[in-house]
């Protein structure tokens, strides 16, 4: 690759990031774009799973019909799909409430997407809901699980190794689904794998939850909810929805700090109390750097104590934006694949001790190799 080509690609990447940031910051900006630029921006927004969010804000301002054909159809479709997903998520929550109505009460803390819907945080508008995540105290986990199984939910059928992985090591049970619906219900007893380096005490999270009026559910305290979003993005390793998750973080920071004047002063001490300072450092850093989220200087300064050593930090500064932002839909995505693989690998490194990770790796590679053998047979015949 020549240096001119490299410069061209870098310029294109920078432009793509700018387009996405402008579009989410002010959707009306889309009206000013030349048709070709609007075309690629809409594709990027769809790929970043935030087209519904942008469409929602355009509808709020009565701007959808201001675009030329076929853009209104594209925006309305994204809106309708997001609204349908939100309905499906809230309905699943309603069914869980029904299933547990006559059971002994257990704290049921709704996490992530469904919690945003329940709280009406700004990021919930037009957000594509995926799974229903519930946090319950560990000693109530089996009780809630068996109650849902009695009412018709079914656990995914897994290999023996994966069952062991979930039951012994993971912070959640294998996903359950009701056969009449398609929503995965994930029961958690913590927000990260207890085998990893981060060990947020679950009882500390559960001690500060807020009840959602009119439901048997509660949600995490605002700071904890934000810290969870950060931990999920920077400890989870799945970067396909990374841009959207970083947007969640920026929205939650802006929303909660505007609601509560004490938010920022309590933020870092809480991250320390929960032992989530590293993902909190990354969350603040990249919400600020990639999306321009305003963070008070003293909070940024406090968070600097949790920064990784300089070489790691430089590497993360290089690969996080690459992994977060969607790449041009018509170009090769080698750089992004490498970045996402590195972050995926890192997420495993921080979640499991080395020996366990090694055995997990050996198992997964062997299992994949054996499965591949099976798939190849019919073709060879």
């Amino acid at each position: 690759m020549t240096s001119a080509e490299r410069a061209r690609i870098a310029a294109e990447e920078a432009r793509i990031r700018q387009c996405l940031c402008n579009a989410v910051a002010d959707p009306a900006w889309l009206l000013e774009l030349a048709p070709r630029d609007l075309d690629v921006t809409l594709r990027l927004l769809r790929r970043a799973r935030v087209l519904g969010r942008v469409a929602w804000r355009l509808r709020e301002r009565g701007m959808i019909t201001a675009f030329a054909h076929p853009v209104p159809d594209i925006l309305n479709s994204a809106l309708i799909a997001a609204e349908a997903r939100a309905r499906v998520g809230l309905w699943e929550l309603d069914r869980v409430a029904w299933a547990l109505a006559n059971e002994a009460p257990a704290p049921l803390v709704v996490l992530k997407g469904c919690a945003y819907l329940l709280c009406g945080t700004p990021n919930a508008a037009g957000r594509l809901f995926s799974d229903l995540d519930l946090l319950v105290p560990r000693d109530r986990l089996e009780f809630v699980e068996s109650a849902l199984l009695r009412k018709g939910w079914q656990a995914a059928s897994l290999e023996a190794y994966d069952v062991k992985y979930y039951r012994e090591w993971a912070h959640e049970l294998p996903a359950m689904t009701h056969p009449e619906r398609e929503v995965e219900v994930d029961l958690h007893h913590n927000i990260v794998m207890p085998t990893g380096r981060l060990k947020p005490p679950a009882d500390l999270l559960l001690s500060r939850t807020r009840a959602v009026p009119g439901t048997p559910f509660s949600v995490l305290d605002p700071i904890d909810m934000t810290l969870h979003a950060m931990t999920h993005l920077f400890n989870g390793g799945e970067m396909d929805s990374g841009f959207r998750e970083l947007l969640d973080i920026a929205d939650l920071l802006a929303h909660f700090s505007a609601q509560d004047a004490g938010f920022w002063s309590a933020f870092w001490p809480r991250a320390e109390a929960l032992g989530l300072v590293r993902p909190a450092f990354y969350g603040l850093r990249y919400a600020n750097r990639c999306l321009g989220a305003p963070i008070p200087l003293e909070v940024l300064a406090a968070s600097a104590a949790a920064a990784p050593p300089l070489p790691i930090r430089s590497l993360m500064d290089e690969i996080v934006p690459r992994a977060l932002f969607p790449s041009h839909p018509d170009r090769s995505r080698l750089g992004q694949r490498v970045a996402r693989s590195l972050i995926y690998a890192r997420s495993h490194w921080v979640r499991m001790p080395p020996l366990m990770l090694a055995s997990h790796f050996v198992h997964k590679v062997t299992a994949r190799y054996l499965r591949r053998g099976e798939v190849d047979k019919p073709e060879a015949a």
Partner: protein
Amino acid sequence: MSAQQAATVGELNPEQLASRLAREGVGVRIGPLDVLFRVRADGIAPPFRQLYAQHPLLSHDRVFSGHLDLREVWQWRPRPHRKVRFTVDGQQPHENMPAAQGLAVLEWGLNLVIALRFQSFLMLHAAVLERQGAAVVMPAQPGQGKTTLCAALAHRGWRLFSDEFGMMRTAGGGFLPLPRPMPLKNASIAVIRQFAPEAWIGPEIAGTLKGTVAHVRPPAGSVAGAQTPAPARWIVFPRWQAGAALRVREVAKGEAFMRTAANAFNYELLGESAYVAVRDIITASRCFELVYSDLDSAVAAFERLANDDLG
């Protein structure tokens, strides 16, 4: 004629079309959809040029409803084993398919894109045609002869809307034409060749999931009228049954409502607006069930339907 002046796909010469498909892509207006096709696989451009001959070409200076890409996968294998990869906006919805099925893969890929991406429309799994400003809607499951009947009627004075998607905006305004190549399967190919010798039918593609498939070009008049919608006036539930004599039965509106709602691709997703739209369609239409085996007598029944002389 130069590429700049060409107004339809068919006006591009074969080399221009193949080269454009392989490079910047070819934009085609299909009713309410503006689709960009990019194809880098041998043997697709010639039938594509025939099947979309009358469709309007679009400049690149626009937003497209979907960006479809079909390319041959590079492999060290002899030709019969080659595969094509179908992607939409760089994402691959299914595994690579045999290169010999490329054209069918592209057409089914467009179906998939429509079904997933166009939730601002109520989408019935139905064939729709128009006569004298009114639409006949034929909701049916695969295997009921929907496409065959649709291809036949499209060559007997009915304007083709779609053999697969009954599309309308939930806000109303009638059904929207989406005239596209119609994929005949297996025995239907010979049936239509005989029934409508004037029809242009693409290559027979053997060994697909649905057997042998060949696409019929939508008649020029149907493509020309692609921006003219029509309200529903008749609902017909067709059922092909080997050796059956023609039977027509009027269906009660309640039953017709249930069958039409269950037939929609996105009824639950749209929620209330779909209910209202289907209710309005059924209220405005007469509803029939049609059992047939012989195409001529079925087409004659539709002629009586158009004259309000049926049942």
